[in-house]
Structures are given as structure tokens and as C-alpha cells.
């Protein structure tokens, strides 16, 4: 594997890795909720303390987790700029022409940074600690009540896991084709935007041809093995809730309570 993508499964075999994927999906919801419930710097301090604790338990190098922020850097930047300039509250620090920067705006932007970073870091922990297969299995289970609404849960799960399965394959293929065209003198980084887009054709066309060929072959292979996505299919690895998951759940509940306490000012105690 050449370039390990950000947020890609990072095996360490830790406590978190061995949790049931459903627990981790639930944790994802708790993280998202926490990020929006927290509304003070103290609450964020608690969030990050919790996050660092989880990262330590997962035994994933912190730098590896931090790398995932790169992918949303521009979104963070954009929302900070918008808030610095358009959120007006409290003392005016800078005022020039139509632009006003206020103390409240800066503080609020700081919170936005912390909130977005927390969202990305905590949810990427889920993909860092579970394999795509585990995640789709987990999702299938979580979505299974939708079956009663005639929603094709199993088919959707299969489609998802096939899509996930082929991401690295197609990436590898892109790599190979790019190299082959480079060897024939193709240049991908010169010229204007139009020339650059056109330069991608020699990669995109073979990539599409091969994606369709693979899809075709896979369909035949599924057919040949009488695959029909019926309910009778069983799983090799059955998901089981264990004491680990119970521990995680209690821990998450504690975390959410703490954050909620911060919001209510400890029920007026502080």
C-alpha cells in the first residue's frame, strides 16, 4: 500500500479496536451531540480531555489522528473567516471601512475551530479503529428495523461494502495507469485548467473501462455462486455485545452527562 489514506484503518488491536462496531457508531452520535451541546471553553476542554484519553486507549499515534484534519482544513478556515467578520458581539476590536472585528466574534470563532476539529478527530477515530467490513456489518444491524418499511437493508449494505472494498483497488489502478501514461510522456501539471483537465483523459478513460469490466466480472462471480442477497445468509463473524461494549457505553454516558452539566452551569451550582 503506497499512500495510507487519512482516516484509514490503523490496526493496533486495542480495546477500542475490539469494540462492537455498533458501539462505535453510537459513540459517533455521542461525539457529534457533545460537539453541539458544548458551548463554553471549559466544556471543550472536557471534550478534548476525553478525546485524548480515547486516543491513548486506542494506541494510535496522535500524529496519525491529527493528520485527518488536513482533509477539512479549508472548511475550518472558511467558517472561521466568516465568523470573525460577520459575528458581531461585545467589544469592537478593529473597525475599518465596513469591516468590524469584535471580541465576541473572535471567541466564537475559536469555539468553531474547536468544535469542527473535535467533530473530525472523534469521528475519524471510528474509521481508524474499525475495518470497513465491520462498519458495514454494524450499519446493517443498526438499520435492520427499516426492513419492516420494505427498505432493502441488506442490499444497501452489500452495495456499501462492495464500494468500500473497491476504493483501494481503484486507487491502485489509477496509480498504475497514471504511471503508464507518464512513462509515455504525459504531463499532468502544466498548462491552464482546460489543458490540465484534458490531460486527465488518458487516465480517466482506461479507469472507467476497467471499473466497468470489474463490475461486470464481479456480477458474473456473484451470479455463479448463486448470490441472491436473501435473508437466509448467515455471517461468519456474528456481532456480539460484550462487557467491553457495556464499559464503553457507561463511559460515553458519563461523558455526555459531564458536557451537559457544563451547559447548564452545573444546574446553577456554579
Amino acid at each position, binding site marked *: *500500500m503506497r*499512500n*495510507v489514506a487519512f482516516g484509514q484503518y490503523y490496526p493496533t488491536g486495542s480495546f477500542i479496536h475490539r469494540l462492537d462496531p455498533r458501539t462505535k457508531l453510537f459513540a459517533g452520535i455521542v461525539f457529534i451531540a457533545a460537539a453541539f451541546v458544548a458551548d463554553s471553553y471549559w466544556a471543550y476542554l472536557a471534550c478534548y480531555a476525553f478525546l485524548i484519553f480515547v486516543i491513548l486507549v486506542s494506541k494510535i499515534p496522535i500524529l496519525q489522528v491529527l493528520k485527518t484534519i488536513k482533509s477539512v482544513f479549508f472548511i475550518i478556515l472558511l467558517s472561521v473567516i466568516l465568523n470573525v467578520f460577520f459575528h458581531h458581539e461585545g467589544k469592537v476590536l478593529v473597525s475599518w471601512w465596513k469591516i468590524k472585528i469584535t471580541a465576541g466574534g473572535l471567541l466564537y470563532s475559536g469555539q468553531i475551530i474547536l468544535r469542527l476539529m473535535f467533530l473530525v478527530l472523534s469521528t475519524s477515530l471510528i474509521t481508524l479503529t474499525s475495518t470497513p467490513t465491520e462498519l458495514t456489518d454494524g450499519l446493517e444491524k443498526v438499520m435492520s428495523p427499516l426492513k419492516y418499511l420494505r427498505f432493502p437493508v441488506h442490499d444497501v449494505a452489500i452495495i456499501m461494502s462492495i464500494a468500500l472494498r473497491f476504493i483501494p483497488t481503484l486507487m491502485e489502478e489509477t496509480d498504475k495507469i497514471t504511471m503508464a501514461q*507518464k*512513462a509515455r*510522456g504525459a504531463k499532468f501539471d502544466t498548462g491552464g485548467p482546460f489543458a490540465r483537465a484534458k490531460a486527465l483523459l488518458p487516465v480517466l478513460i*482506461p479507469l472507467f473501462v476497467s471499473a466497468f469490466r470489474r463490475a461486470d466480472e464481479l456480477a458474473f462471480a456473484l451470479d455463479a455462486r448463486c448470490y441472491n442477497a436473501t435473508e437466509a445468509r448467515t455471517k461468519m463473524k456474528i456481532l456480539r455485545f460484550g462487557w467491553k461494549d457495556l464499559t464503553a457505553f457507561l463511559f460515553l454516558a458519563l461523558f455526555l452527562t459531564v458536557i451537559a452539566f457544563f451547559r447548564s452551569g452545573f444546574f446553577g451550582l456554579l
Partner: protein
Amino acid sequence: MSIEIKNLSCVYGVRTPYEKKALDNISFTVNEGESVGLIGMTGSGKSTLLQHLNGLIKLKSGSVKVFDIDLSKRRPDLMKLRKHVGMLFQYPEYQLFADTVKDDIMFGPLNFGMKKPEAEEAAARAAELTGLNWEDVKDRSPLELSGGQKRRVAIAGILAYSPDILVLDEPTAGLDPLGKKEMLDLIASLRKTTVSTVITVSHNMDEIAEYCDRVIVLSDGKLLYDTTPAKLFYEEDLAPLHLQPPHAVRIVRLLENKGIRLPHDVLTEDQLVAAIKEYFSGGGHA
């Protein structure tokens, strides 16, 4: 000297659980006119080594020199390098993209700065070299050709910009026996007429024995042997590499067990037949 590689090492995914040492201190040279076979199991570092020969991955440690292009220098002229070293990847037919065979073969020459009429002429010449009927195929879509023809188009796409060295990654993979034979004969005839220096990756020891004057064996990123096919197949123990010697060599060994000693330079079917005839015509037996 055409290619000079010194202390080349390459590590993928540094400081991740996926860290892998793909090449470990490799040194060798290739002279003009040599046909070098490259052998090694999957994951032994062959592909990584080949990619270095075209500047497709960044050189991190060691040096690679092709003619006067030194990849360890800052900003080497990669276009010049790629024009010198024509590289045919595995299953090259999957890299064809243009609407017509003509456009696909002309892609390389145009990239390397030829003018259109010039490039078309070069494309026609390259196509004929590979045994394609230019008038017949030039306006057809490469996708509607047969597997063997597609591969010829891919090779023509490389020959069209007249490289000085040809690097072939498993050129016969996935072809039927006849296609294989035709491909190997094509490469042999190219060596006589257009490109004299060829590096071939192959898993077929019979092919290596017949078409290469030198073999380089990679294992776990290390250079294990750099020798002649005769020495490799007769003197070295290939079992740990899971390599079967060529059929001729195996037959020579079987005959030896029966007390018939043939010379240890027999590598191909023709040589074997000749050696057996020679032995029984009175030359060899005691």
C-alpha cells in the same frame, strides 16, 4: 554503460504499520546491447525497481543513472529519461485510451515533442514493426481489437518514440501459448533491429533461459543473484525462491541421475536436442 544503479533503497509508508522495505541496497549496471531478465516473487521489489528507471517514484537513497541523466541530482530531466527508457507495464492493453489506434500510438511521440505528420509516420513505422497492418487498424478503436493485437498497439505506442532501452514488465502475461511465442519472437527481432538493450520481468524460466544473457534475482528487496542463466539454473539452489528451473535444465538433471552427463550450458529445447544427439553420436559416452 546504459544504466548504473548504486545502493538503491526504497521504503514505503515510513512510520506506519504498513511500512515496507521494497528495495534494500541494490547495485548493478546494464550495458548497451544486453538482454537482462529480472526474476522475483510478487512483492520482491521488481516493480519498484522498474519504476525508478523511469523516474516514476522519487529517489530517496542511493543513485540511479541512465546514460547522462542522474536521478540523484536535483531536478533531473524526466522527460528525456522517459524518452530514452521505453517502459511497457503489465497488461498494457488496459492503458489504451484514444478513439483510434492511430491516436493512441501517436500519444507518446506527440508528448515528446514530435510534430503531427512526423508522429504519424513514426506511429505507422512502429505499428508495422510489431506486425500490425497499419492501414487495417489505424482508424479502428483499440477496444475492439483482440487481446494480442491490443498488446501490440501498446508496444507500438512505446516504440514510436524510439527509446534506446526497452523495459518490459511481464510482456507475455495473460497471452495464449501462440501469443506468447509471437510476443517473444517480436522482442527478439526488435533487439536485432531497433532496441538492443532490453530488461524483461518474467515468471517463466524457459523464457528467461531462452531470451536473456543475464539474470538478476530479487528477493525481499535484496539483490540475490546477478549472473548468467546457465550459472543460475545449474549452480544455485532455487528451491527457497520457489522457482522451477527451465524444462531443459530439469531434463538434463534427470538424465544425469541415469548416468548420462550433458554439458551444463544447455538451457533451451534446441540446445537440449543438439546435446543429446551429440552425446549419442559417440562424442560423449564412455
